[in-house]
């Protein structure tokens, strides 16, 4: 197993380099570029533009720029933002707790509700509860975030005045933990609805398949109570495929939700990415994408390893 893990890690290195090279090139090929913010400034001349491009290091050939970036990235330095002039790592670090809080809470909530919904639906398939849950999850899964977020804000912020319309704190209350609570409710609801919908579907189908298996019939024949049959025999087996799905969702804990964070003015990583995209702030975008890509690779591996733990039939070598 350790050999397997080592091999996977070694394979990940060229993969990440390939991804980063591809992203680096694609990013700079998008028309506009970092000088687009200067627009049609009548006071900017060709010399001014050339001076700024040189200061940003963008006058170097693309491959030289990439190799420079790669070397410092390997050393743990993701460079400086083209606009703020601050280290990319510092900019990411100050946003990370905000995103982790938002995504963490919504993931926990979705896991609890999604898995519970899936299990109940599977235990009583084609019941009224199952139909309601199924319809609900299809609805939830197909709701576009930007629309649903605005609609929630319309109802709870604009009409009822129960909850604030975006932000993370009242102005001047940044250290007041209690003040922040109402600000979390709407974004977490939006984020959770989609995950609950999809995870409950996975859980339901996985559970139903297991419940049809021979060993469940045997367990029932032995006279075990339904609670034990479902709770320990069926659930553990049904969770196996769900582990993969959940693990694959983990990297987004860091990456955040671009749409939701933007709609709700949440100062997280997703918004940082969105802002950087608008300005073509290449180093910041590269930093966020590189960390996200690394997390995807890591959690992919973790999912495979975990798979062999929950399912002894699978052996990694």
């Amino acid at each position, binding site marked *: 197993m350790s050999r397997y893990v080592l091999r996977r890690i070694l394979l990940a290195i060229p993969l990440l380099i390939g991804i980063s090279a591809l992203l680096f090139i694609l990013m700079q090929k998008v*028309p*506009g*570029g970092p*000088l*687009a*913010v*200067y*627009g*049609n*400034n*009548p*006071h*900017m*001349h*060709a010399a*001014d*533009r050339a*001076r*700024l491009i040189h*200061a940003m290091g963008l006058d170097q050939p693309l491959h030289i720029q990439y190799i420079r970036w790669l070397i410092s990235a390997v050393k743990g330095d993701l460079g*400086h*933002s083209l*606009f*703020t*002039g*601050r280290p990319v790592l510092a900019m990411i670090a*100050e*946003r990370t707790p*905000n995103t982790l809080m938002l995504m963490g809470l919504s993931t926990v909530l979705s896991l609890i509700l999604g898995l519970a919904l899936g299990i109940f639906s599977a235990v009583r398939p084609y019941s009224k509860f199952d139909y309601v849950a199924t319809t609900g999850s299809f609805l939830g899964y197909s709701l576009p975030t*930007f*629309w649903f977020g*605005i*609609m929630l*804000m*319309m109802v709870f*912020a*604009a*009409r009822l*005045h129960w909850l*604030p*319309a*975006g*932000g*993370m*704190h009242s*102005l*001047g209350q*940044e250290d007041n933990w209690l003040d922040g609570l109402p600000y979390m409710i709407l974004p977490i609801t939006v984020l959770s609805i989609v995950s609950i919908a999809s995870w409950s579907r996975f859980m339901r189908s996985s559970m139903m398949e297991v419940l049809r298996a021979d060993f469940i019939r045997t367990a029932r024949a032995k006279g075990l109570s339904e609670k034990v049959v479902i709770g320990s025999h069926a659930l553990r087996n049904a969770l196996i495929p769900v582990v993969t799905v959940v693990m694959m969702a983990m990297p987004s804990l860091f990456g955040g939700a671009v749409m939701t964070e*933007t*709609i*709700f*003015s*949440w*100062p997280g990583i997703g*918004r*940082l990415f*969105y*802002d950087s995209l*608008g*300005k073509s702030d290449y180093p910041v975008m590269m930093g966020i994408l590189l960390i996200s890509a690394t997390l995807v690779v890591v959690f992919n591996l973790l999912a495979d390893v975990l798979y062999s733990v929950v399912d002894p039939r699978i052996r990694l070598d």
Partner: protein
Amino acid sequence: MRQIRLTPRRALAAIAALASLALAACAQANAHVVRRNASDTVVIRSQQEPDKLNPTITNAIAAVDCTTPIFNGLVGVDDHLQLFPDLLTVLPTPENGMVKPEGKGMLVTFKLRPGVRFHDGVPLTSHDVWFCWKLHMDPKVIVNSRDGYDKITGVDTPDPLTAVVHFKEPYAPYLRLFSLPNDPILPAHLLEKMDGADFNVSTFNRAPVGTGPFKFKEWVSGDHVGLVANPDYFRGAPKLKKLYIKFVPDDNAAFIQLANGDIDVYADFNLEQVEAAKRLPYLFVANMPSLTYEQISFNLKKPLFQDVAIRKAIAHAINKDELSRTIYKGMWPVAQGTEHPLSWSYNPKVGVPYPYDPAKARAILDAAGWKPGPDGIRVKNGQRLSFTMTSTAGRKTREQVEQVIAGYLKAVGIEMAIQNVEGGLLFASYPTGLLQSYKYDTALFAYSTGVDPSDNLANWHSHQVPPEGQNTTHFINAEMDRVLDEGNRTLARKDRQPLYWKMTDILNANLPVIPLVFWTEMHGVNRHLMNFRANPSSSRFVWNVQDWYIDDASPSAGGKAENPS
């Protein structure tokens, strides 16, 4: 069953419909809410977060609202586009002898206002003016533009309150220099020991020190910038205690926050939001005339447009009044030239050079040899009178204007196809951008000019063909070059005025562009906020923030009474 395909256009239309529905709903619901902030606090919404709070090395519009209250320049611009001495005691002009010729160049004496201190208590002196010039010329400092500063040969500081600036040639817009929004006076004592490269990434850029009515207090990344009143401000302590600039990227969320009284100023409403705000009695919409104009550019490199008859026929075929009345809802006034009627460079005799007259358009085309073909589109020597118009995709009003214009042109036998692209591709610098590399037929977008008409030089001078400048129509005219050069060198306004009138005449005779309408910037403001006076210059509305105050008692009096617009 008929299938409805979800095209991007339909999706956009659906989103727009939903958004206006949403706006209407929230506008109705909140008729009772007033304000939620303390009566010594005002919150301004900014769509974007600034990158730095150092105006000299940022070009982000988002930074203007944060930095203008912190800093002062030598010269300010008021809401009637009049220049006033800000850190100066008097504006230097040739008339008062403070601007004098010197050899081939000129000499300007700036007299600083006594008793001005930076927020850290250090007095402002002429040395700070010298430092700001040096800063602009430092090869390591990432200033956006050295325009004007590169004509300065030296700054003398005979005493702490006098700066004498030597120019190597006459430079008419000299009052533009050392001023907001981009070039206020920075504290030399905090910055001059730094290397230029360190200046670019200095902590000063996130916690600036200026002379303005508000002091920097905090910057909560991704959330807001907080400013507090400067009790020692040289014009007296501001009436407010706190000023927040809050970053709210989503327009709908921001509108709800304005409607709920969480924010007091929402800059740059669109036309739908103006309608929605009418239902909220405690809001008023401050209409601010803008020097930016919407126009049609001709690519004069294309043989088709080299015949001025075609440009003139197109000008007569377009009903600007109808466009202004319908699509721009009467809010954006018709433009008969590039100069705004508020500006001293506007020629009152310009009249209506190209009135809407389709018959005349047809006659001009007939005379130029373009005869209607079998499908109604005119033809000359086998070439059809057909071209494309390019604009920024996704901007609803521009797309509507294009469609209406295509209709006007079709009526006189001209075929125009619409070919919109993403704004980044249209405006990118040479050689990527379609405008800068002349990869378009006609284009619909906006030109914005500064308070001084010398900004026109970048658009119409033959030396300003990209990549050097913004002459994206490829307008080459020797007389225009002479007039613009002269306008840049002539110091007295009374001598400059006829030059810019002449410029307008040349433009109207040659039509490299057809100006359509001037923008009106529309700001949603809480009626309890008093003394909100929008300013057409690029300092927008924060220029007089020291006079703002909240009147909780009389919502009906409101800013409106004090905002004649």
